[in-house]
């Protein structure tokens, strides 16, 4: 109990004093997970929408695969990405193992199926006639897709939250492909694991609290947008 109180006090000390290392770690976490979420959004929303709107053989199988992908274990992704990009791996020439880029890639792989699955469901949930209605008003294919995406923006925001929440709190893949290098690829989760290992529970708790606050703030912001949209 004393440890938790200490941790909370330490957390506020670190936050209030703008500890440069903690700030750096927090900022890096945001940048990496934000970029990964953004990438997953581009790929996930487009692919999810495309799958939802087209009919092809094996569509059910593809949807099952996407839904399975929503639960991809991060360590499996971490392992897979590591094997792909290590020096002697097929993508070794990129030389991105133990870099923030590798973390972005791994996190994007984790978040993409989540975003894709939710987008797919969101677009499928729209009335099938809506698509025809939009086309009949003279929309081109892209205009039609854009209107549908806009129409499904509430569940899509949920997809962003789920994707971001999934990757910012993820540690297994990040530590494997990022290496937890100080000032370079150390993010809130990997730092928390390390500080726990070092027995610095107060700092670990502090980092954990910052992570929580961060996740809360981002979700709060998105929820605000969502609620405002709904109320309109």
């Amino acid at each position, binding site marked *: 109990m004393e440890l938790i109180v200490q941790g909370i006090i330490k957390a506020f000390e670190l936050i209030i004093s703008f500890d440069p290392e903690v700030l750096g770690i927090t900022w890096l976490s945001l940048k990496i997970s934000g970029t990964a979420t953004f990438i997953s959004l*581009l790929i996930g929303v487009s692919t999810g929408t495309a799958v939802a709107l087209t009919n092809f053989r094996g569509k059910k199988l593809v949807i099952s695969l996407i839904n399975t992908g929503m639960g991809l274990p991060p360590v499996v992704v971490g392992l897979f990405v590591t094997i792909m990009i290590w*020096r002697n791996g097929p993508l070794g020439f990129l*030389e991105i193992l*133990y*870099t923030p880029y590798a973390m972005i890639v791994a996190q994007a792989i984790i978040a993409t199926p989540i975003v894709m699955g939710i987008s797919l469901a969101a677009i499928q949930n729209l009335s099938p006639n809506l698509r025809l209605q939009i086309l009949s008003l003279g929309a081109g294919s892209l205009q039609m*897709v854009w209107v549908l995406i806009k129409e499904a923006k509430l569940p899509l925001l949920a997809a962003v939250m789920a994707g971001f929440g999934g990757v910012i709190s993820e540690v297994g893949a990040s530590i494997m492909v990022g*290496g937890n290098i100080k000032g*370079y690829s150390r993010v809130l989760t990997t730092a928390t694991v*390390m500080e*726990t290992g070092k027995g610095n529970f107060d700092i670990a708790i502090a980092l954990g609290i910052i992570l929580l606050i961060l996740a809360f703030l981002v979700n709060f912001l998105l929820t605000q947008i969502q609620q405002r949209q709904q109320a309109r």
Partner: protein
Amino acid sequence: MKIFRSSKVIETLMIAALLFALGTANVFAAKQEPKQKNIILATTTSTQDTGLLDVLIPLFEKETGYFVKTIAVGSGQAMAMGQKGEADVLLVHSPDAEKKFMDEGNGLNRRLVMHNDFIIVGPGSDPAKIKAMKSSADALKSIAKANALFMSRGDNSGTNAKEKTLWKRAQINPEGQKWYQQTGLGMGQTLNVAAEKKGYTLADRGTYLALKKNLGLDILVEGDAALLNIYHVMEVNVAKWPKVNISGAKAFADFMVSKRIQAIIKTFGTDKYGSPLFFPDAGKKVEDLGK
């Protein structure tokens, strides 16, 4: 009728995705430091957990312009990385495994850097009555006899390798015993588990000292020659793995054994823990250590 297919939609989306991917690739290319700048140092957790590398690496980077990516794992995994050419230089403490690593031609230029010692720690109540025993083998025998809980790292790290050697010397096979448990975690976490469960464990002195304040575990056995914890630096064999940054690896290894750094190692931790965590040994022979 072809015109009704939404293939155009997919096409467009795919092109968009591709453009984005290319864009990202450009960012990657632009931000990537020149290849030879990066050094991957695979090392044991103890060098990171004690904070030693946090002091040394910035010095090295500042002096040489190299960028060191420290991957802190167990010695076993560190050598596995070296074996696959996925690291450039290793700083590890598992001498038997290191010899095998060298014999298989995976490493170059194995040099002694420093040592400290392992200690057997346990709860103050000391149920196996091992306190102040001189021989680690006797202590382990007593633990086994008393069926007292012993936490093993079980992760193939240097400490774990040392622990296995010690059991062998004590002629005990603890595997599968009820009182013998494996955490599969790093040193710091294993110490915490041992503290929680009031068990014994083998730890390196550096990590123990760094964590001591929260633990409630006492040093029970120390000073046995068998408990020496010796760190070597090795460069990964570039002949075997051409992508290894050999000049960087050599620069780092040279740095570690240089007089100035050895002096820093000698005093590291004194201000914080009252005694040094490591003893610099560059240029010495293993046989002379601890004497």
